[in-house]
């Protein structure tokens, strides 16, 4: 629903800014979907009288107009107060009043300047509704009423500046489908008084026309009111009325139709007017026509206002005259009985229809109108007569005429009054803070919930039932009669929602936010590291935190580290806190070797305890030991022996999946072999190491390395450093390449002293944008290969992000790869 601020202000004294109002609406539960500002046009946009309009020679659409602007000051007007304006609108003609924007006027999108069109000077522009800003219509210029004085400013005529709001009304709130409802909600939100329109007492019915009303479908039409007004004059509506409709998104038609639409927008309640003289009687010779509320006959035809003929299937509710359908009830009127400029007498309908029936008809015939939209949302019939009064008084005021007789009112199904109790104690329990009784009454009474009294709470409708007194604060309830337009309020909890919504959800006390105590990242990193080891076949061990101090010497350290020592150890070999996980893992290895295990993979994730001067640290480490095959023996598929490449893959794979950019260097630990043991760093921080245990070290754990004939590998991860360095490394999705990649293989002769890493770097560097990856798939040494060389075979994957690679491009690249390898590394092709 679209509302204009200027119109809303008629019912509510708000003087807040647009943004504030938008915020208020949003937090009252009425979502603002769009805001459009209509700027003021200033003193240079005025009503002018088109004195003459002639075709500009050699054009078929341009008019050369002389426009009288009266007293409006403009330097270049002639002695007759006229200015010359070129206009391209099809409806431009001499004798009409129009809206002229003189040079200097700032329209919404541009500034009017004096211009030359086809060599003819034009002092301004005659404006369409779109140019003035009140609608999107650009099909012609605005026809200003001839009774409006020349020189009247656009701002006055169209209530500018103004702002329109596009509101989303939730389906349960039919009461918000009119300005009055919105104003009512805001008045409760702001605790302001809302102003209902004052309806002057209707004059005595003096007309003589009659009509007969028959309601055959009380279930589908719980209330139908009808009144006749004779002798109306149908003209275009006054500008204030047209403007009001335009700003709310409706097209003006004529005075009576516009008034029914105006009252619909005001109250949320659709009305319909029939041309009385087109309605016919049931019986020939009858002096007055009929209005009959009935269901359609199967295959009955109906010619609607939109000019289309609808074939009805017999379920639709109709408003018919004595012979045929005059309206699809609540959806659309008929063409034949519609109000035209020739209409003299009208029959005004104000009714409610059963929502389901309206929805079905609207859906079936794909006809959705402002009227059906509202009736589908369940309107109350209680107000039909007073709304008819409102429309009638406006009609009498604007279109003239006389009322004929009293209003006809078929009201077969009356709505029963609803009285509900609401407990302040319950509000506190559900919403979380106290609201005192006066506040509750204040908010609800502004919503037109009438206070009935207070006492013992009872569920359900208490209308007509006595309220029992109570002293118990938790049981005490305030009772209100719920207004008929609030079909959504049926229980205490619905009232509680109203109170909380309008008092503001910001009144709900903010909870005490508990601080983040847990290091979730470190927690997950540790668990994932264990899982990585498990996935690599290792079993987790848990060892005591105190150890034998002599074990560090067994590892090959010449001096004992600074241990944290127990004063009262249970034994000498449990007398210091451990500084490494490796000794116990080797003990676990020895234990299991002694129990006939051969293929052993073990790890422990635990703390070590380091004395550092006066203080100590307890960093977490993960250490693992591997020996033997990496799987159970299988008759057809051999398990791999755990070797340098296996352990390197396990270690580097772990770091790589964390996306860490590590660098490796030789690990200089006394228990590891040289050339196979590496320590990894990133940003100067140690991440861990892997390597092979020296056989003499194994001997110290009573493992006979000669007998074992297996390499024993270890790795260690510095979990605290890894957690720290991998923190906040958010992954960002990379676009998947749109062009195919190409793989080329290369077999090369490599001097023994040149490493694969160098070759890989050299190839990648040839063209970083194109070469995606290099991977070895064969290494080969034999007598066939020249002394001092080995053979390597590589997969090279090439890809261009911008286009599909051509063979020429690939060949060129491969040539330069070969050239670089030869020149830089003395590597030649095989």
């Amino acid at each position, binding site marked *: 629903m679209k509302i204009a601020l200027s119109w809303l202000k008629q019912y509510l004294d708000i003087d807040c800014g647009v943004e504030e109002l938008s915020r208020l609406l949003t937090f009252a539960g009425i979502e603002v979907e769009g805001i459009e500002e209509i700027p003021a046009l200033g003193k240079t946009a005025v009503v002018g009288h088109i004195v003459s309009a002639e075709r500009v020679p050699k054009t078929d659409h341009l008019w050369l107009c002389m426009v009288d602007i009266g007293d409006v000051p403009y330097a270049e007007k002639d002695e007759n107060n006229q200015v010359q304006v070129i206009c391209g609108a099809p409806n431009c003609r001499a004798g009409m009043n129009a809206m002229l924007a003189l040079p200097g006027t700032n329209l919404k999108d541009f500034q009017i300047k004096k211009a030359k069109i086809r060599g003819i000077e034009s002092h301004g522009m005659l404006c369409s509704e779109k140019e003035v800003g009140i609608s999107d219509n650009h099909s012609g210029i605005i026809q200003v009423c001839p009774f409006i004085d020349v020189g009247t400013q656009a701002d006055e005529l169209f209530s500018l500046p103004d702002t329109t709001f596009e509101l989303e009304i939730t389906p349960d709130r039919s009461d918000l489908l009119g300005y009055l409802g919105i104003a009512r909600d805001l008045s409760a939100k702001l605790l302001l008084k809302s102003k209902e329109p004052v309806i002057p007492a209707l004059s005595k019915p003096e007309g003589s026309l009659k009509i007969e009303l028959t309601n055959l479908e009380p279930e589908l039409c719980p209330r139908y009111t009808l009144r006749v007004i004779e002798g109306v004059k149908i003209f275009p509506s006054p500008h204030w009325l047209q403007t009001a409709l335009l700003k709310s998104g409706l097209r003006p038609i004529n005075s009576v139709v516009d008034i029914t639409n105006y009252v619909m927008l005001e109250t949320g309640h659709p009305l319909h007017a029939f041309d009385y003289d087109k309605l016919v009687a049931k019986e020939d010779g009858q002096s007055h026509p009929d209005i009959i509320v009935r269901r359609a006959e199967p295959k009955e035809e109906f010619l609607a206002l939109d000019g289309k003929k609808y074939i009805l299937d017999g379920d639709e509710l109709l408003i018919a005259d004595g012979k045929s359908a005059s309206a699809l009830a609540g959806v659309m009127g008929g063409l034949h009985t519609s109000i035209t400029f020739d209409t003299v007498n009208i029959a005004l309908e104000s009714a409610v229809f059963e929502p389901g029936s309206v929805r079905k008809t609207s859906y079936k015939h794909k006809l959705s109108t402002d009227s059906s939209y509202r009736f589908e949302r369940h309107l109350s019939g209680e107000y039909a007569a007073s709304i008819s009064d409102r429309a009638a008084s406006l009609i009498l005021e604007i279109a003239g005429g006389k009322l004929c007789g009293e209003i006809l009112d078929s009201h077969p199904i009356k709505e029963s009054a609803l009285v509900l109790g609401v407990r302040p104690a319950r509000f506190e329990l559900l919403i979380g803070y106290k609201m005192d009784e006066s506040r509750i009454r204040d908010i609800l009474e502004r919503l037109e919930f009438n206070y009935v009294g207070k006492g013992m709470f009872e569920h359900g409708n208490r209308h007509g039932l006595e309220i029992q007194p109570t002293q118990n604060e938790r049981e005490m309830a305030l009772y209100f009669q719920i207004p008929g337009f609030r079909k959504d309020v049926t229980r205490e909890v619905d009232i509680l929602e109203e109170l909380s919504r309008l008092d503001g959800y910001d009144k709900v006390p903010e909870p005490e936010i508990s601080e983040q105590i847990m290091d979730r990242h470190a927690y997950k990193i540790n668990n994932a590291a264990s899982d990585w080891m498990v996935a690599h076949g290792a079993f987790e*061990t848990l*060892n005591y935190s105190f150890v034998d101090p002599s074990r560090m010497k067994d590892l090959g350290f010449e001096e004992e580290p600074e241990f944290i020592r127990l004063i009262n150890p*249970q034994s000498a070999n449990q007398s210091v806190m451990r500084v490494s996980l490796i000794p116990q893992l080797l003990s676990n290895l020895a234990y299991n070797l002694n129990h006939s295990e051969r293929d052993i993979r073990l790890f422990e994730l635990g703390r070590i305890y380091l004395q550092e001067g006066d203080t100590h640290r307890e960093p977490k480490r993960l250490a693992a030991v591997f020996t033997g095959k990496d799987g159970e023996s299988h008759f057809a598929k051999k398990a791999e022996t755990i070797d340098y490449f296996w352990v390197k893959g396990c270690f580097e794979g772990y770091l790589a999946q964390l996306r860490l950019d590590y660098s490796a260097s030789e690990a200089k630990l006394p228990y590891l072999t040289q050339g196979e043991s590496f320590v990894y760093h990133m940003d100067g921080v140690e991440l861990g190491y892997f390597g092979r245990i020296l056989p003499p070290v194994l001997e110290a754990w009573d493992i006979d390395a000669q007998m074992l004939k297996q390499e024993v590998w270890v790795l260690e991860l510095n979990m605290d450093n890894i957690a720290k360095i991998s923190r906040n490394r958010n992954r960002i999705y990379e676009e998947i390449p749109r062009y195919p990649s190409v793989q080329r293989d290369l077999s090369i002769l490599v001097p023994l002293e040149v490493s694969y890493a160098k070759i890989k770097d050299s190839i990648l560097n040839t063209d970083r944008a194109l070469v995606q990856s290099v991977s070895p798939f064969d290494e080969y040494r034999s007598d066939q290969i020249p002394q001092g060389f080995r053979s390597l075979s590589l997969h090279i994957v090439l890809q261009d992000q911008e286009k599909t690679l051509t063979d020429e491009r690939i060949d060129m690249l491969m040539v330069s790869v070969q050239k670089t390898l030869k020149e830089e590394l003395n590597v030649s092709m095989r």
Partner: protein
Amino acid sequence: MQDQLESLILEAEQEIKKCSAPNDILNVKAKFLGKKSVLNGLYGRMRELSKEERPAFGELLNGARVKIESFLESRSEAIKQESWKKDSSGFDNSLPGVSLSRGGLHPLSIIRRQIDEVFMSMGFEIAEAGEIEDEFHNFDALNTPKDHPSRNLADTFYLEGGKLLRTQTSTVQIRVMENYKPPIRIISPGRCYRNDKPDPSHSPVFTQVEALVVDKGISMIDLKDTLQSFARIMFGSNVKSRIRPHFFPFTEPSAEMDISCVACGGQGCRVCKQSGWLEMGGAGMVDPAVFDTLGIDSEIYTGFAFGLGVERIAMLKYNIPDMRILFENDLRMLRQFRGEM
């Protein structure tokens, strides 16, 4: 004529039956329906016939053609179907598959993760602190009297330099309350140390999980609720829990918590010593004196705490008879828990 066609169809049918590969089908098709086929030749003889005879003759030929085509098609389909089946002659499908060799977590880690998950799903955070502690955090702040026997060398491991190895993870609670304002909902799992000789039910190194909740309006209902939820998730929905009076220096009131025996379901058995109940650990409402020491207003905040032994839970759940088994790291034990989550 008709006879000739029928024998042709019969001949085609037999040859098609013999087809065993897609290529055979193509060959037979060429032979019977191709340009040089007998059937195709017969079509050429149409011209020799009178106008009246032609339709009937054409119908005969077409009938034969359709028949042969349908034989070809069904045989071709059959060949396709057969090609999907593996030749199983001489294939011993009872030989074992190759299994990816996964390792496994230690049963204590498995139980720890289970406990973490239960409490995290209840909105708890996990807090850790050092195992090397001072007397203040391990005893004084927990309201332990200066002469309490637990402070003895026979009970607590002391370190050179005056520190000690914490005897319970309540120390973490103290450190959290020192550093964070309520509301607090934490569990603190970790290693603790007591100078007990290893035996079936003791270990100098053991694992504890303590829970602490501090907030406005926390009562013993919350303690019972948390314990009950924990017991049900860990041991099954039929398990009952209870608390009974006990003494701990840092809780008031204090309680011992029991769960109904997971071995006998509460009937009474060897595991529960015929009582039907198993002791799970200590619990209680945080003593106001503890709050006061830490500068938390005990008039505004209340809280509960309880501690669980991870080894005991693992032993109960997995029917492990001796605590020492958990620290032997024997692969024959560890392998039994591969895949346990």
